[in-house]
């Protein structure tokens, strides 16, 4: 195989149609994910990270649509693939875990059947064989007594168990890329760690690349090698995860880092109020001119209000979109 | 603001019927009951008789206009009675809970088990035919949906902060129900009331058709149709126009209800189709 990256997203634009008008909900987003790598996308809700992942798997639905740019998966452009071609990738080579394990599973279908569907769809095996594989898949996500559990319905499982089932479904066909959209947000803190460990371990064992999406910078930094920070539909910074913490470049990233509570910070610096970023993410139809972060930015100047900053490469390989990056 | 076709069309149809009812004495050509003339019996539509005449030679156009008065009165008044009963029972049951809630719940379940037309028919069997009896029969038999809705809203609203605050301020239960709870459930109740009005108009027509509602010669659309059945071969127009009038009225009310629901009760689109 070539050494080309698994996924290359270039200048992706996602349009939100309101009547005849189109607003770019995501614009100029470019990033790459190597084979087996875990890449994180972080940002506040409404910044466009979730719809970016839906675009990658071809599940954007009206009023959202891809408005431009290219998505290259395994060297092949997939943004214009037909539905039937896309279906061969979906679930098979690119799969997805969603935020809400409560509602993401069909309430009227036993979980075994919902896993088995994957094998019938993509491996062309019989239902009997698929059901046997489903038991194995359930065992691989460490659900106890899988041969009995396959007959359970989603409402009989806890949130964490349901998310394990979702992971079993997503990894059933050993995909090259797993999109995990806030996979632990709806779960208890103790369960979160287990689920993250499971994702990390299984993806490492199968060489699956992961796009981890979260609003939680700490979680992302913990899981990922590289991080992209999104704000108002744009990628504002892309760095190695450790560096984001040590040396954030974009004022928005600095704000995010400063708003994290740090273990031991109180003993070092005394009692301090956590920092917050004033204001909220603007709605898609009201993105400000110039740099989209300027109304909330402490360093904003006249230039920021007028001119959209381009992407600047940083010395250590990162990228930042700011006139005044540090 | 989006153009809401159902609201506009429904409103126009219903307003048309209301105007026809109110101005019937001016718009009608003849007296709907007294001006029978066997010389002109079963005249087809045209000429002086726009909608033709019936077996007694009465002008159907005039009778249809006057019929709007009966239908609207029955529709509006009986649905008002239903709404008041449903809101009182549901609101108090949801707010107070306890044995009263159990009782109202049982009552509602019983009401839901008896098809409302059958229940109304049973009441009409006891009372003498006529407008008042119809208002009672239809006003007592269709409150269960309103009651359920009011109860559910009261249950969810009573734990809200502002209701709790009113309690702390020492407001009486009645005052809390009327000033804090009722205004917040009014939208869906108006929607159910509007749709129920259409149902009441249909029920009145059905009962009158069966000879248990408004009795001939008074011009109720339903009783006109029950007369017309015998002349369907010789004079089909006697059957057509009163039926069209019922259809337009009920369609107007249903469209109006749908349109109001889109505005007043957006979540209900999936709750009650």
């Amino acid at each position, binding site marked *: 195989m070539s050494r080309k990256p698994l996924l290359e997203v270039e200048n992706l634009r996602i349009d939100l149609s309101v009547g005849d008008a189109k607003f770019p909900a995501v614009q100029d987003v470019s990033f790459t994910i190597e084979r087996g790598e875990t890449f994180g996308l972080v940002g506040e809700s409404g910044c466009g990270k979730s719809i970016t992942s839906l675009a990658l798997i071809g599940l954007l639905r009206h009023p959202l649509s891809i408005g431009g740019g290219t998505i290259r998966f395994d060297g092949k452009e997939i943004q214009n693939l037909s539905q039937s071609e896309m279906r061969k990738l979906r679930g098979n080579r690119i799969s997805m875990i969603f935020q809400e394990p409560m509602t993401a599973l069909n309430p*009227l*279908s036993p979980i075994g059947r919902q896993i088995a569907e994957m094998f019938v*769809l993509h491996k062309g095996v019989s239902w009997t064989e698929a059901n046997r594989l489903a038991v194995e898949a359930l065992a691989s996500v460490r659900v106890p007594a899988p041969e009995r559990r396959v007959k359970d319905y989603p409402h009989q499982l806890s949130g964490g168990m349901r998310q394990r089932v979702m992971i079993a479904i997503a990894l059933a066909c050993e995909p090259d890329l797993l999109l995990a959209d806030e996979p632990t947000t709806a779960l208890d803190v103790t369960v979160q760690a287990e689920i993250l460990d499971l994702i990390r371990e299984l993806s490492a064992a199968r060489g699956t690349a992961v796009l981890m999406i979260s609003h939680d910078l700490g979680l992302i930094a913990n899981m990922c090698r590289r991080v992209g920070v999104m704000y108002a539909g744009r990628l504002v910074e892309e760095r190695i995860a450790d560096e984001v913490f040590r040396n954030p470049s974009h004022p928005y990233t600095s704000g995010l880092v400063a708003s994290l509570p740090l273990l031991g910070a109180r003993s070092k610096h005394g009692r301090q109020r956590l920092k917050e970023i004033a204001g909220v993410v603007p709605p898609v139809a009201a993105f400000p001119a110039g740099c989209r972060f300027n109304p909330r930015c402490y360093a904003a100047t006249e230039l920021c209000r007028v001119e959209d900053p381009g992407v600047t490469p940083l010395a250590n390989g990162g990228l930042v979109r700011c006139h005044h990056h540090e | 603001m989006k153009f809401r076709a159902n609201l506009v069309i429904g409103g126009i149809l219903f307003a048309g019927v209301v105007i026809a009812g109110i101005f019937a004495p001016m718009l009608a050509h003849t007296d709907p009951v007294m001006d029978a003339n066997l010389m002109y019996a079963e005249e087809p539509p045209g000429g002086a008789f726009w909608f033709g005449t019936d077996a007694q030679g009465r002008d159907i156009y005039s009778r249809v206009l006057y019929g709007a008065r009966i239908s609207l009165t029955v529709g509006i008044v009986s649905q008002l009675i239903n709404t008041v009963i449903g809101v009182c029972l549901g609101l108090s049951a949801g707010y107070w809970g306890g044995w009263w809630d159990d009782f109202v719940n*049982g009552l509602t379940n019983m009401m839901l088990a008896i098809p409302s*037309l059958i229940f109304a*028919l049973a009441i009409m069997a*006891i009372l003498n035919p006529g407008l008042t009896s119809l208002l009672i029969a239809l006003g007592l038999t269709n409150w269960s949906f309103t009651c359920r809705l009011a109860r559910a809203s009261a249950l969810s609203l009573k734990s809200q902060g502002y209701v709790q605050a009113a309690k702390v301020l020492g407001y009486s239960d009645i005052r809390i129900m009327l000033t804090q709870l009722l205004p917040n459930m009014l939208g869906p109740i108006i929607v159910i009331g509007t749709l129920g009005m*259409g149902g009441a108009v249909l029920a009145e027509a059905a009962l009158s058709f069966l000879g248990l509602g408004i009795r001939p010669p008074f011009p109720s659309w339903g009783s006109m149709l029950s007369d017309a059945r015998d002349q369907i071969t010789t004079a089909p127009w006697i059957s057509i126009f009163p039926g069209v009038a019922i259809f337009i009225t009920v369609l107007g009310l249903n*469209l109006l209800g749908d349109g109001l629901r889109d505005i007043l009760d957006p979540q209900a689109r999936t709750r009650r*189709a």
Partner: protein
Amino acid sequence: MLSFIVRRLLQTLPIILAVAALIFVMFSVIPGTFASSMSDDGRSVLDAEVMARMNKEFGLDDPVYVRFGKYIAQLATFDLGTSFRTRQPVASVIADRLWPTAQLSFAAMLFAIVVGVPLGFIAALRPGSWIDTISMVSAVSGLSLPKFWLGLMLMYLFALVLGWLPSFGYGGGDPRYIILPAIALGVAPLALLARTTRAAVLEIMNADFVRTARSKGMSESKVVRWHLTRNALVIILTTIGLQFGTVIGQAVVVEKLFSWPGLGSLLVDSVTLRDIPVVQGSILVIVLLFLIINMLVDVLCAIIDPRIKYT
């Protein structure tokens, strides 16, 4: 499942008792008795002695609570009393009428389901299309049509003008006789089913688990077959159960119009004749039918939806 059915039966019993009590009380407060109503119309003048004898014969001069006790005791043995008019047991009078009403109601619901559910499905799969608009406009129109008028118009067109179908009557079970009344009765539930189905399918289309199904790489037709249908079915079945009650109630008007020898026309005739035991019995049987059908629907829903048993 068995315990669910038993529990459901136990919930139904108090409703039946309450309905029986309500009907009894309603008809006990009627001013005047059957005997006086016979003399009211002036056709048959009964002297006081005959009236007293009739009241005694039907046990009408006992106190109300004694009569209620007797009434419930009789009901427990499926004895619905004796018709004032024909002196036949009410139960056997009703039994003769049950089958035609069941036929008509089922035919009407069958028509409503076979046309309404697919219509709602198609409309929901293409929201905003012309077929969606047309079916929803037809649905609201169907809900607004008076059944007896629709029946009258159908009768005029298909029986009298075109001569394709018989105009009225039972025809001794000839299936051609049931077509027109079943359509007249079925249009309203058809319209409601189409609307409910559309709303249910649209809601489920946007559900998270349908998005999951798509993310698995499933074709739309498999999404519909594997995940949508069952979920929509629960909502549709519940609507069908509730509509059955309305249909049995509305059958009164349609049966009368088409001279269909069912429970509905029996009820109307008995009301006109003030044959109270038959009126009470018919209403009770209609309510019972409705409750039984809804129980069947609930059991079906519980089979399809595993969550129902536990909540």
